């Protein structure tokens, strides 16, 4: 049980980093985010509705991202998420932490950091 929960937190942490990174450049809607993750990971990572949206809502509640309904002509309205300035700060620090972490793992395991 304990193991699983660590695993979960761990995943959750890196997933948050993924979502924030994807929203860095421009606002996107949920489906777009899930497609991008799938494409860029070449199918290795997949976020389904059940995990993606609760995570978005959580990030929104923390004030890191903000969702807004946007209606573009000829389309149904969609909820677009954009990074808040607070989210931008969190992203920067998470990214740094991640790099440090990866580098440390690399040094220990002997896998060269790209």
């Amino acid at each position: 049980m304990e193991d699983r929960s660590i695993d979960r937190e761990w995943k959750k942490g890196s997933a948050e980093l993924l979502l924030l990174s994807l929203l860095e450049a421009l606002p996107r809607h949920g489906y777009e985010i899930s497609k991008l993750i799938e494409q860029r990971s070449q199918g290795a990572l997949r976020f389904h509705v059940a995990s993606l949206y609760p995570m978005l809502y959580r990030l929104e509640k923390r004030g890191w991202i903000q969702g807004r309904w946007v209606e573009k002509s000829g389309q149904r309205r969609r909820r677009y998420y954009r990074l808040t300035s607070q989210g931008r700060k969190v992203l920067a620090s998470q990214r740094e932490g991640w790099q440090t972490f990866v580098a440390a793992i690399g040094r220990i395991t002997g896998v060269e950091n790209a």
Partner: protein
Amino acid sequence: MPDWKEQIRKQLAGLKLAPTREAEIVEELAQHAEDRCRELEASGAAEAEARRITIEEIGGHELLAKELEAVERTDAPEPVVFGARSKARFLTGLGQDLRYGFRTLRKSPGFTAIAMLALALGIGANTAIFSVVNGVLLRPLAYPDPNRLLNIWETTAEFSQASVAYPNYLDWRRANHSFTDMGTYRGDDFNFTGSGEPEQVAGEYVSASLLPVLGVTPFLGRGFLPEEDRQGAPCAVMLAYGFWNQRFAADPNILGKSLTLNAVNCTVAGVLPRDFRFSSARVYMPIEQMNSVELRTRESHPGLRVLGRLKPGVTMAAAQTEMASICTALSHQYPASNAGRGVSVVRMKDDMVGYIRPTLLLLVGAVGFVLIIACANVANLLLARSAARGREFAIRAALGADRRRVVRQLLTESVLLALGGATIGLPIARWGTSLVLAAAPGNLPRSQEIGIDPYVLLFTLAVSTLTGVLFGLAPAFHGANANPQDSLKEGARGAGGGRHRAESVFVAVEVGLAVILLVGAGLMIQSIWRLWRVNPGFNTRNVLTTEVALSPQVMGSPAGIRLAYQQLLGRVAAIPGVQSAALTALLPLGESDSEIPFWPGTGPQPPQDRLKLAVSYLVSADYPRVMQIPVRRGRFFTERDNLNSPQVAVIDEVFARHIFPDRDPVGQQIGLMVLGPVRIVGVVGHVKQWGLDSDDTSKVRDQIYIPFLQIPDRFMTEGVAGVPIVLRTIPEPLSLVNAVRTQIAGPARDQPIYSVRTMEQIISGSLAERRFTMLLLIIFAATALLLAAVGIYGVMSYAVTRRTHELGIRAALGASRREIVGLVVRQGMKVAGVGMATGLVAALALTRLMADLLYGVRPADPATLATVTLLLGGVALLACYIPARRATAVDPVVALRCE
């Protein structure tokens, strides 16, 4: 295509989300599902397969619900548990109340605007008056430890505050142990010969000790040294900051430079700080520079004032006791001058502002009434609204909200209203303050210190919060007490009788307070009106007065001064439009006074305490002609009454009755201090020297006229620098000012004129304080009348609407229009009548407080009370009649159908 929304809603069912939140999530997720399903189909999956995969992804094993629950649950609104008193809950609740309050007020902009405007008027007016009171009465004087600064006066049988003889001041200063030091000062005008035309500048003679006593250090340079404050010392001078700025362009090297004052070269020793508000003088000179016999004689009291700083630990009473014993010793030592003279110490601030305190407090009371009336009006508006909101409260109560919560919500709303009113009220207050200052008597003490400071803002905040609670309380409790069943049952008609009672009470209070204010204003109007009609003893119309500074060239010799004045009067009298011209050392009803001690008969001068005092006028021969003061007996003096003829004097009728009740005063002899024996040659009418109102009650009323040409040489050079000239003109007096200026300036153009005023302006100035009070009371009373009328009108209009049904039935049963109007008007007038009666009783009690401000009218003046009753009654009648008229327009059929 399946209904994805339905699918997702099923998943979320167990979460019990707020409906709007649920709808949002459903929409977003359904879209995602739809996109996903399409994508799967596009990539070749069969429709059924694509659907299965999508459903799996959405919520296999209830994953979605679990994940969402973790996120959304913390977001759910906290259940409101009443009676729980944690601070956090209170703050959350307050936030809710505020948000809700804002929304409610925004929803009814008309109500909000009217209520805020009424409150803004009340709060603004109160803030304006408070900022005056704060600046004048409350703020301590701007000197270190100002409570230890005391004014020290001489006292006599006639005056509780008489100016001090310089030798007495010197003895006081030497002998006392109560004060760290004393200083003395006396205002005077100086003839300043700068680079351009000569001009008269306001100045002040001060002892070297005055600045240290005040605790003021100069902005530049230094104060006067003791050796500069000695007879015969070279003249030193200090400049006021403004004078240094304007006349010397703030020259930083001004120290040590020299300027010419009264034809004497004076060296600048220092510049006073910018905020030095001790006097309005522009230049200061050591008192010993006042080259005057009067300064050296113990008999003379040339307007010196004395200021002392109490030693730490010494009480005012102890200082008074010590000073009194010093005075007793002096009167034994110098009985001729000091017998009967006492001393009085008064806190400097009390002396400055004490006389205006009753006026300002009266205004505070009056403006407070205006605020209460505004509150009552808003309370009525809120009551009417709370009836309309009865269902809202009933539903809240039915859902379990307790009374406290509802009261709090309503109070939050009213405090919000009041704070909104305060926000609008502040600009009104600033504007009102400048209006008050513009209308204030010119001599309102400390008027430069009036402004909006943190204390004023704090006051406004406190007043508005208090106001909010005050006017919100009754409606709030009424709202909270609403019985859910009644309110929900009652249908279209308003709530029950409690509210109507409260409404009536509020209207009665408004009317009552309006009565008080109207009576106050009415009494002030009557006083001013009566004062204007008081005969001052001379003809005030078409008289121009101006002060003159003689050329420094003539100031050297007494004969030169006499000649200069005679020539000057001749030139002025020759101006076309000038009927006659005279000089006088004392203007009636002016700011100054001058008394001379005298004794009847031909004997030698008795001791000081047996001398009598008379107001003395040093005038030229044409004075009664200019002022049109009637000569009752004998003659006035002429140009031939000069140094070569026997000394003569003219007395007024009060003097004649007082000293010679059984004899003809003409031909009698009296003794005058300093001048010696004089023969009375005539009697003239009495002039109201001490003011139109207070002359009758003043202690020194005897008046004596002394010929200017008989003033002995040794007194000629002093005190004539700025003697007023009075002219009787045919055209409007001020139209001749330029001609007068040219003629007085003389061939060398070195005799400036200043303080040019008409006699009517002087009279008007003497009434300034009363007029100020009257003006503000009129404004307050008018506001009160308007608000009360609006209040009555509002309540009656509402009552008529409420009674539409009843009035319809009455009309259907045959009631005439007259009867219906009468019915409605009677209801309104009953309330107004109760208010008026209560108000009249209260006015009788309260206006007694303003008895000192009244003239010729008693506080319980029946005419004023009757006028106010009629005025307010008329306004109330009108305010009832208009809604009553509307009531008759009710069509019975329509009225009955609206059930």
